């Protein structure tokens, strides 16, 4: 069995099917990009896996265990961490304190949690901001803080929801380099982006969602040439032109 699997995962909101029978596999050590136009159901899929939504149908397996419908805190303790598209920090806490909250999960003693949090700040390049209040940070740093806090829980899999959105080109480069470094250190990562340019150079494998369904699951190169993907992104006319050369 793969590290993480979903079988026929379906989530509906009233009449809208946000995720329809999604079969997804994630192997240990992979860096997978999950892309799709706005409203394709990427965040819903994340929410179903990380316990924020309970899927209407289908199951989620993590390390062979059925974790469907587990609460977010149980999912986190099992080893799946995530960040949010809309950044959520503990605004009244400092950067270090934010990360310490995450570090407490595996380090019950305050001194150990602090030491671990400081180490995480070091790897994410936030050490110089340790004592700054999180609420006052610019968006790029808050995104990085959210990543640091997720890392502090020492996850096996990290789900990043639009970690690059709202960053300028220079900041995107830094963020891409950091994700790559984390992956090289052995972390399994799923990256949600609706900007293909961010995902293509980074991911080994790209899964494309459209209208809640998986329409492609392949290497970045082949996905970029897939007519159905081009159609989903650019509309049918471009797909026809691409086919005809």
């Amino acid at each position, binding site marked *: 069995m793969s590290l993480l699997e979903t079988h026929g995962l379906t989530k509906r909101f009233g009449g809208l099917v946000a995720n329809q029978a999604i079969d997804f596999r994630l192997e240990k050590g992979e860096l997978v990009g999950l892309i799709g136009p706005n409203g394709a159901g990427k965040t819903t899929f994340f929410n179903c896996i990380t316990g924020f939504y309970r899927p209407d149908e289908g199951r989620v397996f993590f390390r062979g265990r059925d974790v469907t419908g587990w*609460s*977010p*805190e149980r999912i986190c303790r099992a080893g799946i961490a995530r960040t949010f598209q809309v950044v*959520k*920090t503990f605004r009244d806490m400092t950067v270090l304190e934010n990360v310490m909250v*995450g570090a407490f*999960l595996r380090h019950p003693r305050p001194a150990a*949690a602090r030491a671990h949090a400081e180490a995480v700040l070091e790897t994410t390049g936030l050490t110089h901001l340790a004592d700054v209040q999180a609420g006052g940070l610019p968006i790029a740093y808050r995104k990085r803080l959210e990543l640091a806090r997720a890392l502090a*829980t020492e996850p096996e899999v990290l789900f990043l929801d639009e970690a690059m959105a709202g960053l300028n080109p220079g900041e995107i480069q830094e963020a891409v380099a950091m994700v790559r470094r984390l992956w090289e250190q052995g972390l399994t990562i799923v990256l949600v982006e609706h900007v293909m340019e961010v995902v293509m150079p980074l991911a080994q494998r790209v899964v494309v969602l459209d209208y809640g369904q998986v329409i492609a699951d392949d290497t970045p190169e082949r996905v970029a040439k897939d007519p159905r993907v081009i159609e989903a992104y650019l509309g049918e006319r471009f797909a026809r032109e691409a086919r005809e050369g």
Partner: protein
Amino acid sequence: MDLTILAQTVASGLLIGLVFSLLAVGLTLIFGVMDIVNFAHGEFLMLAMYVTYWLWVLWGMDPLFSLPISALVMFILGALTYLLVIRYVLDAPMLAQIFSTFGLMIFLRFLAQVLWTEDYRRIRGSLLEGRIEIAGVFLGRPEVAAALGGIITTAILYWFLKGTRLGWALEATAEDRTVAALMGINTEWMFTLAWGIGSACAGIAGTLLATFYPIFPEAGAVFVLVTYVAVALGGFGNITGAFVGGILIGLLQVVGGFLWEPRFKDVLVYGVYLLVVLVRPQGLLGRR
């Protein structure tokens, strides 16, 4: 003016203020974590007084020893209040939240009347009875014990919140329960714990007050109203603020009443409250 009398008055204000502090700390803890005001906080205090009274009357247990029992009973009552009532109104409109604890207040108050009548009861002959003298200032031993209890409990609570993993988890839940859950914190358990600890504070205060204050069904109302002011003065959800606010209220009541007119003491309390609301609505120690 006689300095000894002034010192006596200040000391009295300080002592009763520290009891307000303990009550306010419990109230503000619950509010900080949940954003819900527990209007039944005073009734928890009253119940703790009765717990202490009946342990004294029926088993001859001194309030000094029944203190942990009444703290535990109130912890359980607080936790049950969360699990059986508050949990169901967490995402309800604010009015529903207000009426749920307000209803609990009415229920407990009249339950006490039905069970134990309106009579004033007193505990006489406890180990704490008597007075001590410091430099010509006489202080009641029960009042001193109550004040010490307030300081010690608040200090322990402060250490718990700032220096333990559970305390951090509580503070994280207070700031953002979604993110707290994301960090592997069981927020349901944190809410239960906050209600338990906050109510245990009222329990400790109740037992300490029972040694020198009459015990009757409306006893909670006497103390809790100014406690709300203490909480607001310190900044809602702010533990240190509530502690300082409680002392301030005690001093205002007693010293103000002494310098002006005892029957105007609450005019001072609420006057200062209005001033703070106008000038610094986030409270003396509150942020934002």
